[in-house]
């Protein structure tokens, strides 16, 4: 039985499509932690997170969210998890408020509480002037904010975000980052993949770098710096680690 102290505990996770994408992955994320999962394109980041969110079935291994086995009790696990992908999951013909009412219905949130919280989120994310406009004509940034509001309306304990800042302008990106910081401060666990390494460097408490479906390195920024033996940026560390892994694989081949 995994400890409920961990927001996420993954062991022996495996997934293959036409080739192995995730190989015997082990990962633990503490409750209230901000964790960044980094890796080059095709490294397996999205596949891992989609398995955690229940969007993909693992070939092998176990995933537990706050001690709940996602395979045994997926409904209980899903009720405390929120998933935000880089492609906002929003309906063109619903307004942000209608969308939040729908999400609240799916998560069985009390209607009055959902309405209060939805309005808070609408204000918080600067969506009030557009609250009664259909999402169809919204910019990518606005759609992403609506999707984020949808993810937060049920007060999740674990928020999983896959490239949430892709295509956002500076202002929208700042708003999303502020929201995430506040959530972490309130004890919510955040796991995020991103290619914007400055964001991971500034926000994440721990960083995992994966390549070819396996961890290349994991730890705090200081630990990662120590591993490559020099005081440098996360970008340099990341490129070094990925290049090292590629060289190792080339040597084996």
């Amino acid at each position, binding site marked *: 039985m995994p400890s409920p102290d961990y927001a996420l505990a993954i062991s022996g996770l495996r997934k293959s499509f036409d080739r192995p994408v995730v190989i015997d992955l082990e990962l633990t994320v503490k409750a209230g932690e901000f964790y960044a999962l980094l890796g080059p394109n095709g490294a397996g980041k999205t596949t891992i997170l989609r398995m955690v969110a229940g969007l993909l079935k693992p070939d092998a291994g176990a995933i537990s969210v706050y001690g709940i086995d996602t395979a045994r009790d997926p409904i209980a696990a899903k009720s405390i998890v929120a998933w935000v992908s880089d492609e906002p999951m929003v309906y063109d013909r619903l307004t942000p408020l209608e969308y939040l009412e729908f999400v609240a219905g799916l998560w069985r949130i009390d*209607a009055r509480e959902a309405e209060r919280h939805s309005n808070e989120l609408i204000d918080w994310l600067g969506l009030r002037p557009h609250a009664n406009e259909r999402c169809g004509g919204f910019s990518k940034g606005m759609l992403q904010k609506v999707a984020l509001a949808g993810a937060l309306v049920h007060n999740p304990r674990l928020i999983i975000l896959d490239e949430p800042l892709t295509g956002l302008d500076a202002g929208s990106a700042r708003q999303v980052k502020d929201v995430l910081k506040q959530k972490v401060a309130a004890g919510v666990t955040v796991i995020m993949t991103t290619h914007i390494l400055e964001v991971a460097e500034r926000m994440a408490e721990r960083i995992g770098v994966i390549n070819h479906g396996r961890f290349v390195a994991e730890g705090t920024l200081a630990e990662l710096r120590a591993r490559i033996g020099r005081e440098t940026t996360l970008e340099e560390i990341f490129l070094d680690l990925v290049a090292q892994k590629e060289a190792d694989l080339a040597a084996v081949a």
Partner: protein
Amino acid sequence: MSAPATLPWFAAHEFRLAWRDWLAMTTGGRKVRSVVLVVVLGLFYLGLHLLAYALLAPWVSQGIAPDKATLVMVTGTGFLFWTVMLSQALESVTRAYYSRSDLDLILSSPASSASVFAVRTAATAFATVLLACLLASPIINVLIAYEGPKWLSAYGVLAGFGALAAAISVLVTVGLFRTIGPARTRLIAQIIAGIVGAGFVIGIQAVAILSFGNMNRFSVLQSPEFIAGTPDLANPLWLPARAAMGDLAATLLVLVIGLGALSLVIRATSAGFAQHAIAAAGVSATRVQQSASTRPFRKASQRHALRVKEWKLLLRDPWLLSQTLMQILYLFPPALFLWVSYGQSAGTYVVVIPVIVMAAGQLAGGLAWLAISGEDAHDLVVTAPIHPRAVLIAKIEAVLCSIAVVFAPILLFVAIASFELAWITAVFLAISAGSATAIQLWFRVPMRRAMFRRRQVASRTATISEALSSIMWAGAAVLVAGNQLLAILPAGLAVIVLIVAWALSPKGKRV
């Protein structure tokens, strides 16, 4: 190889895209051996010829005289065909303005947008003519075989009228752009296309019902009173029919009129194409203000939340509504037939039952695709704490409730006349709608709702099974209504269709 950015160069580009698009539509994106494709299409084409022969043999065997009765029949049938061509051309022309696939690239290039428009309009005309020729060729070829090569001129008539349909479509679209603006043009053009496509068929059927008490649309064209009331043989109204029957001068005139009209329209409207296309592009960025809601959030179960979402999305998507409009439009003649036959013997109602049952199956199939496969926020629904089965049940409920709303008034009409027939219709309507929904459920593949037009490509098996099951259940319904034991046969076949569809469905890959 033509010089870049010239008319022939764009034409070659369009032809390549159209060819690949057609291939993808035909093969469903899967690699199919071209030999298999040719054999299947060839067999289908041969089957159409046999059907045409069966239909025409009684008429052709007596010899076709160019008398008034023949001219009325050829003109009526030709006009019926042309309305379908016009409907198709209208839809294609609208797509040329609104499809963003490569317009951004072309319009931002130094190439002439007028050339692009000219090529796309000509391509629309060509596609319209090609489809018309393909559909009409079994009939024309049978006539050529019996009556000689003079009927070859019918192909020329099709080309002329195809060009005319494209020209009219461009004028209608540009007219709509100028009068109601780009935001509404697409929807209105599609509604017009739907009404034009079904209008004449329904109109002539309505006349048949009101005048002759049956739903055979040819009753009007064959009635001596109607024939007697038409203009004399020298009237230019009969020119297209004469052209189709081998009058070369008339054929030439039809071709000159059609192609000339298309050239003139292209010349007159191509300069404004870029302007209209850019205006159409701005539509997607237009925000729709929903009336500011003051009502509080409603307490709802998960399933109810899903149902309400489906209904809202359906009601707020006029494009999808117009796509289903055609199916509902075809219910007008049986409804009229019911109204006219009200109070007569129950036997007359037997005619309308199969139409209702088939329409229910087809409508349910479309709605079920939208609700089950066309889920724009698929990840959101899958990550919600609700059992996948409950999601599917809610979506099926949404579909079946919509079907009930559409068909309840018609069932009420039937019930007023004959409760027993209403009961039989309701049962088979439910079975037909349920079967179509089940097929969509078995073949579900997550896609964007905007892909609705392409849903048939996603699975040919699903499309064919859906159509076959609706037809079989309609047949069974009419036989049950007529107290015939033979109803077991179509019902059994419908069950076999469902079993085969289930067996062929991609069980392991469903989401």
